[in-house]
């Protein structure tokens, strides 16, 4: 399967002239493809057929929670009443504000938090907002000297990047033998310079930080705050809440936990929950229910300001809210339970060693002598999407596997078979993989060395 670029199907150069503007304000020309609608439909239908999605088959990407995206939430988000301008008066968008308020409230209860902002448009943006809130809090308390954020070595790369972006020095915390936070190492790492510890729980190995309360005490005793990375929240819904564990700030990934589609890389949404002490620092605006029952946008007293031009990815939030209503308490708890059951069941079938446990919604197997990335490529030949690979680095040749609750026995067994077959393949077969996909193994080195980032840059010898 190969689909030419739209530009290769025919470009047109339009001279920009005789416009309603003086010539000096306008460009000379525009050269772009000018496909007819039938050609557009064919182009994108074909491209879609060259793309793996949740409906295509199992998608066990560890830490990504690629669960089924219910269709009705798309219809709800497409409702004409959802298409409103952000500068409307509060009175004229009571529906939008009511929904946002209800979602703030639901997320607060799910996280065990006292207040939630829906503004951050992605998980990383949520981290940024959360750390900015922590920073503002420390500054307001005259503790602006706290310049370090502590991050376990197995954490998501975003945690490190976020802390740096917010102006913090990053302190990497080595994991303990058991794959969890080492309390002694933590004691050594935190102190008067610590602004926060960022933690995922269950962590990236799928392990619950059993000492979480002690961890919280250590951090709090040092004057720091505890930040919860919501990437793995799908493991805990209805069975444990970050707020109850001592976390002060957290973000939610609605495109992971609450089934909004990932869209090939977004839009997601990364709401942030905080305890009461931090609520005044939330971004502006928050949605509040007024005394008359109407909803209004208000600016928290010590607001950090904004992390997004408006209220974030509104349509994504609508989908998340619809999902929450569909499932309710029992559905959310069941989703979590089946996600954990699936991971445990699948791990039993996988021919690779799983060094750490007990894990929850995901497990990290080790490909051992095999190259994990090659194993993944080979699994593509067996018609499934492979797990996340080579991370966390604390496991050799890691295969980080998260089937989610949306996979049934059939899908799990299909995954297990793909693992089995790849494990039995020799290095040559792995190195040559994939063989059965639309594209074969792609040359990353040449892509990065000889940059071709637009069709303008193409003049290649590839057999296009």
């Amino acid at each position, binding site marked *: 399967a190969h689909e030419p670029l739209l530009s290769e199907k025919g470009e047109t150069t339009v001279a920009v002239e005789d416009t309603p503007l003086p010539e000096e304000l*306008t460009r000379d020309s525009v050269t772009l493809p*000018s496909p007819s609608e039938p050609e557009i439909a064919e182009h994108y239908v074909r491209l879609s057929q060259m793309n793996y999605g949740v409906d295509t088959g199992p998608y066990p990407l560890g830490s990504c929670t690629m669960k089924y995206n219910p269709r*009705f939430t798309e219809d709800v988000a497409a409702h004409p009443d959802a298409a409103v301008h952000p500068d409307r008066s509060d009175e004229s968008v009571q529906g939008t504000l009511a929904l946002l308020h209800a979602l703030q409230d639901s997320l607060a209860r799910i996280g065990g938090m006292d207040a939630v902002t829906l503004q951050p448009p992605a998980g990383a943006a949520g981290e940024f907002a959360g750390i900015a809130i922590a920073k503002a809090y420390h500054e307001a308390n005259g503790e602006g000297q706290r310049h370090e954020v502590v991050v376990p070595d197995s954490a998501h790369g975003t945690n490190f990047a976020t802390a740096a972006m*917010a102006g913090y020095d990053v302190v990497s915390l080595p994991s303990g033998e058991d794959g969890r936070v080492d309390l002694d190492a933590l004691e050594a790492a935190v102190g008067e310079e610590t602004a926060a510890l960022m933690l995922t729980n269950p962590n990236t190995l799928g392990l619950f930080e059993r000492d979480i309360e002690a961890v919280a005490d250590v951090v709090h005793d040092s004057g720091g705050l505890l930040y919860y990375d919501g990437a793995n929240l799908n493991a805990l819904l209805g069975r444990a809440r970050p707020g109850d564990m001592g976390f002060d700030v957290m973000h939610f990934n609605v495109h992971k936990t609450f089934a909004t589609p990932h869209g090939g890389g977004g839009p997601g949404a990364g709401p942030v929950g905080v305890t009461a002490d931090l609520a005044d620092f939330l971004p502006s605006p928050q949605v509040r229910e007024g005394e008359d029952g109407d909803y209004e946008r208000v600016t928290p007293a010590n607001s950090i300001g904004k992390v997004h031009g408006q209220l974030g990815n*509104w349509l994504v939030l609508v989908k998340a809210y619809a999902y929450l209503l569909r*499932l309710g308490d029992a559905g959310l708890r069941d989703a979590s339970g089946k996600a954990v059951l699936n991971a445990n069941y699948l791990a039993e079938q996988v021919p690779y060693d799983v060094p750490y446990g007990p894990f929850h919604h995901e497990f990290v197997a080790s490909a051992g002598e095999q190259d994990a990335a090659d194993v993944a490529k080979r699994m593509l030949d067996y018609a499934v999407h492979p797990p996340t690979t080579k991370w966390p680095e604390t496991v050799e040749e890691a295969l980080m596997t998260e089937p989610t609750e949306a996979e049934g026995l059939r899908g799990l067994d299909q995954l297990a078979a793909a693992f089995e077959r790849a494990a039995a393949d020799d290095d040559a077969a792995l190195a040559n993989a994939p063989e059965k996909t639309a594209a074969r193994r792609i*040359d990353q080195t040449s892509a990065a060395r000889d940059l071709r980032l637009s*069709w303008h840059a193409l003049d290649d010898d590839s057999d296009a």
Partner: protein
Amino acid sequence: MSGTPYAPHTDADVEAMLDVVGADSIDDLFDIPESVWFDGAFGIDEHTEREARREVEGTLARNADLTEFLGRGHYAHYVPSVVDDLSGRSEFLTSYTQYQPEVTQGFLQALFEYQSLLVELTGLGVANCSMYDAATALGEAALLAARVRETTGDTVVVPDGLRAERESVLRNYVAGADLDVESVPMADGTLDVPALRELVDDDTVLVYAESPTTRGAIEASLAEIADVAHEHDALFCLGSDPVALSLLQRPADVGADVVVGDASVLGLGTAYGMGLGLFACREAYVRQVPGRLVGASTDAAGKRAYTLTLQTREQHIRRERATSNICTNQAWLALRAAIHAAWLGPDGLVDLAERMVELPRDLASRLDAITGVRAPVHDRHHFREFVAHTDQPAGAVAEALEAEGFAVHVVGGHEVQVCVTDANDAHVEEFVAAFEEAA
């Protein structure tokens, strides 16, 4: 129902699986200390699909039925049906970031085409797969400027007329890099270039200007503004959007080093401020670009293939030394924008942009004819929108208009701002009539 409808397990499946894993119950699989085990309820009722739809749609229906003449950075254009239909295909909508390019060539190619569209419109060598919105793209532009500048600096200069929300985001983004934001005054709707020249010095890392401006005026001095920036080794960042760029001066031709803006004018619309951050820059800065880049390469069979590239800039590889913490971006909206642009084609884009000059010109002259109204306030060419002076207090005018079913911005004591595009132009007659009453 007493569980999620989105898991395929039968009760028998669950029993069989528990047997395999050697657990008595699902709860047994959770390694959660008793002390933090949650026994409470969230209090969220479960709903059937039909009930959930009714509930959400009923809530949304509380939004008033207004015809919006609103803009100021968030614009609605007619989005053709192919956009929904094609972008909604689940292979696109439900896919993850393209970390396995061999099975995600379709999305990668679409993003490559989106990048190419922006390269053509900006004339710059590099466009990324998206930032969150115009505001965060501006924040990233400032951080890029600080990274690429040979000497350190501490100031980002923005126009006084910038939306407060964008400035607030910018301040948050640059705070970690210890940069400050300063505003340069506007002169009759566009940047006051002599004032800019006063303000910019060797501590300036970035000069930001918009065209069209937040008040809808087309900036005529872009090249001059770029020169001011460049004289002080600052970068010049232009804020615009893909429709405007189809007609207005090409950023590369006026010396722009970075272009940011909101590309959701294609394929999405206002969506309560959800955006699609446009980010393009000179090729020289490619290794400092935030966000994702798709590059062309070849596969093992020698065929052209696409892949995410320069990932070493990104957080999952470089951690605290990444160019940004962004990972999930607005990729699906980039796909939608690309489809919309393909549907318009270059002819359609230029035509649309020309109408975005004509429509506000015509509407302003209609409003100007109303006693007690002067429009446009600024002696500039406008794009999509303009500011009108009303002898009546602007708040009262806006309120009266809202009572008649129209929404406009209040931007001053006696100033309202009015935006007209192909999405609301069919209502211009009624709007003018209502305005006549209101003013």
